């Protein structure tokens, strides 16, 4: 790759010189840390549920190869292609989501997965980036053409998506999708009055969820009024950080992974805290913060409304998912199953995040500075 010349016009070379390499490096770092942690945490879980020790590790590597491939492929697309791809993906995901409700595999009391061979596909995961692209397109289109009913379409589709996710039921994804959509709406120029109303509505929705869904009530009660033993996962998770201290117990020396049911996925950060210590945990938080904040800073220079809304939406999804996972691990938020992007084990989730990241990479390629086939004589917009 280092032999690429700036004058080389091949697709790969163009990609390399236009892509956000800092972002690329951050993701590579996350993936590396993720492999090490899944190696450490998942054998304990696999052995406990009677699988071969490296069951999750092997699958994770397969998913990683697929994910990196998908991310690269998507990042090669032009912004228009990304938009088309996102919209098509959105339609396909809506159909799959409907199919999941009818023919999905039931696990832990919810229908979220479609069985494909030995892999299960979680349609709602792929819906998230697709819906963000779709929303960004709708909002930016109605900016460009005031007669275009983008806002109305967006509201209707949002209603459909929420209805499908709630009926699975998948409250975590619903909240994530709602938060991202709400912020996209906010950035698209929603009047402050409606912003306030929306926040009020969100709180009302959470209250309704608390009072109508028993498992939500239990988790929230456990979080605010901890009873000894009732908060099993959270207790374990906090203890992991305490055991780990600054430098950790050492790789493989952790014990919490033997007791935490989702040590390889939702609680992998706690395993990192116990085995590698607060220093590595700080590094992980820092990488996520760098990806998100730096992404936003770059957007401040962006002129295209679609790009702003789409990239911001994808970054918000990525950042919120990471934040919720980390916050649950650190017991800042009540327990909620959500994977840590690129680090946790999880097939659909990782593939979907890779697609989303590919879209970010594609949309943030610096076409403004460099056009293929054009000799770079001028800076800025020619």
């Amino acid at each position, binding site marked *: 790759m280092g032999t690429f010349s700036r004058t080389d016009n091949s697709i790969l070379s163009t990609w390399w010189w236009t892509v956000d390499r800092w972002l690329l490096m951050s993701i590579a770092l996350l993936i590396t840390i993720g492999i090490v942690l899944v190696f450490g945490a998942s054998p304990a879980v696999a052995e406990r549920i009677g699988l071969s020790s490296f069951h999750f590790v092997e699958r994770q590597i397969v998913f990683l190869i697929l994910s990196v491939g998908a991310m690269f492929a998507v990042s090669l697309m032009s912004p228009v292609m990304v938009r088309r791809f996102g919209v098509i993906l959105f339609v396909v995901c809506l159909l799959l989501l409907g199919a999941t409700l009818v023919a999905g595999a039931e696990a832990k009391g919810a229908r979220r997965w479609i069985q494909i061979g030995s892999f299960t596909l979680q349609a709602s995961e792929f819906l998230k980036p697709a819906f963000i692209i779709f929303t960004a397109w709708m909002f930016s289109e109605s*900016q*460009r053409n*005031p007669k275009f009913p983008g806002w109305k379409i967006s509201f209707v589709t949002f209603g459909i998506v929420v209805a499908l996710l709630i009926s699975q039921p998948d409250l975590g994804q619903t909240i994530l999708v709602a938060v991202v959509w709400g*912020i996209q709406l*906010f*950035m*698209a*120029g929603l009047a402050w009055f409606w912003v306030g109303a929306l926040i009020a509505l969100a709180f009302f929705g959470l209250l309704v969820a608390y009072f109508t869904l028993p498992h939500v009530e239990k988790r929230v009660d456990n979080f605010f009024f901890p009873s000894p*033993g*009732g908060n*099993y996962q959270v*207790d374990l998770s*906090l*203890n992991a*950080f*305490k*055991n*780990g*201290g*600054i430098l950790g*117990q050492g790789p493989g020396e952790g*014990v919490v992974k033997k007791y935490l049911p989702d040590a390889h996925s939702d609680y992998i950060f706690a395993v990192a*805290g116990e085995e590698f*210590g*607060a220093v590595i*945990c*700080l590094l992980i*938080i820092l990488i*996520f*913060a760098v990806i*998100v*904040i730096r992404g*936003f*800073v770059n*957007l*401040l220079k*962006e*002129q295209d*409304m679609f790009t*702003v*809304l789409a990239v*911001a939406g994808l970054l*918000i999804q990525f*950042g919120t998912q990471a*934040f919720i996972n*980390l*916050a649950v691990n*650190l*017991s*800042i938020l009540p327990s909620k199953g959500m994977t840590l992007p690129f680090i946790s084990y999880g097939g659909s989730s990782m593939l979907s995040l890779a697609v989303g990241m590919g879209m970010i990479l594609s949309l943030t390629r610096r076409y403004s500075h460099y056009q293929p086939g054009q000799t770079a004589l001028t800076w800025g917009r020619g």
Partner: protein
Amino acid sequence: MKPIDLRMEGTRQGAIETARNRIIVVMALFTLGFFSLVVKLISVGVFQANGTTYYQTASSSQSALMARADIVDRNGVILATNLKTPSLAISKVDMRASAEELAQEVSEVLPEMEYEDVLAIMNAKGNHRWIKRKLTPKQEYDIRKIGDPGLVTSDSEKRIYPHGRLAAHILGAVDIDNNPKLGVEAYFDEQLSDPAKSEEPLMLSIDIRLQHILNQELTSYMDKFLAKGAAGLVLDVRTGEVLALSSLPDFDPNDLNGPKNLSEMNKVLQGVYELGSGFKTFTIASGLENKVVDLSDGYDATKPVVVGGFTIRDDHPKERWLNIPEIFAYSSNIGTLKLAQDIGVERQKEFFDKLGLFGKSDIEVYEKSGPLLPRQWGPTELATTAYGHGIAVTPLHLATGIAAMVNGGRLIPATLLRKNVSEFTGVTRISSDDESSAHSQVISQETSGIMRNLLHLAVEVGTGKNAKVDGYLIGGKTGTAEKVIKGGGYSHKAVISSFISVFPINDPKYLVFAMLDEPQGIKETFNLRTAGMTAAPMVGDIIRRIGPLMGVSTTKKDEIEYEDLILVSGHER
């Protein structure tokens, strides 16, 4: 067109401006969010870091235990301690799986419980129900592995006796709630269960090594002579400390049921027996002390004597006049009763009383018996008690009395607690009256010296020959007593064979008593079941093993006192 276009461009520019400004708001929120993560991570991972303790549940429950104090032997070896044994309960509120599912899994872990029993407990009324108490560590692990929060284990503890049956009768036992049932567990319960003293072990006088030897020899001789039971005692004659005390058959104190029937009672402290010839020691000591006779005196033992309608014979008849050492060494009933007749009822009773034979002993257990005494003291009773019949006492009574005969005449109550515990700090010290002045002088030093020599003589030339151990000077007296049959009279087949001995007899330190309950004669003993054939070799074997262990130095064969008094014709079996 153009103005519209411009306006459009203007709105677009305005919209992108708004979007960018609002990005800053979102960025600020994310910055705040990630910053809160960092703060929490540092507060937990750096400032609350402990690095060693793994689980709150594991560490915090330890102090809540109500520990019962340990019991240790005189060398600090643990005889009774506590083991954490969790109990399993079901808490229905926290139950995740169905009762059927859980009952199935629990019954698989607990082999002694059927699925139906577990299910019945789970379906019973009330939220909290015990399923099984005192789980083994493996069972606890398996229960935890089921992983249902409804299965609650609570720490409790089980009393453990690591030596099993070995000192069962001394230690006693506790029930499932740690309430003591027998032994020192019951006697010292107040102290043992006092939470303030739970760190201070109770130190007994027992030496578990001697206990083991005694137990082994008793078991082997009990098997050899097909006896119904056996019992033994090792006593320090200088301090009254019981070093070993064993009674067979015994019971396992770890088994929460305790002794099952009367045969498992403590024969040394609870069993009362007509111990026979051992009592001749007291009669002769009384005669010497009261100056009724001196050593060269004697009595005619040619013919059996009739007292109160009973004909009293000698077991080893010499059919001649016997002097006092001969009467003792050959265990002559006739000679002894004639001496007792000279001593008289009053002095005999007074002497027995001084030896503590008329009341319960002071030993530190509740299950102990007083003697069975004659209802009235007529000539017959005077005669029979002189050689240990018609009066039934516990072996401990006899041992305490014999100890006083050889230790210089001081009657020291037997104790199960270690004396002189100063070298062990932090060990409970209950009684400290080891000053000789505190004990009553029952015979003079001189009489005590004579009695040592007489006991030595009985082993060297008399009925206790089989107890001889090379290198040690041993004094001892056999005792073969026919058991009282229900409804009166004596059985000729059922006997209690006992041997009481003291060594080294030239400087008495340890008293060893052993008895067999209904031994059968075997070929090796010419079908004899007398104490000289059964109990005496048993005691010899015990002394042979405990002597070196207790650091008793061997002695070259000493001059046997009074041997010259024995007539040559007496040198026969």
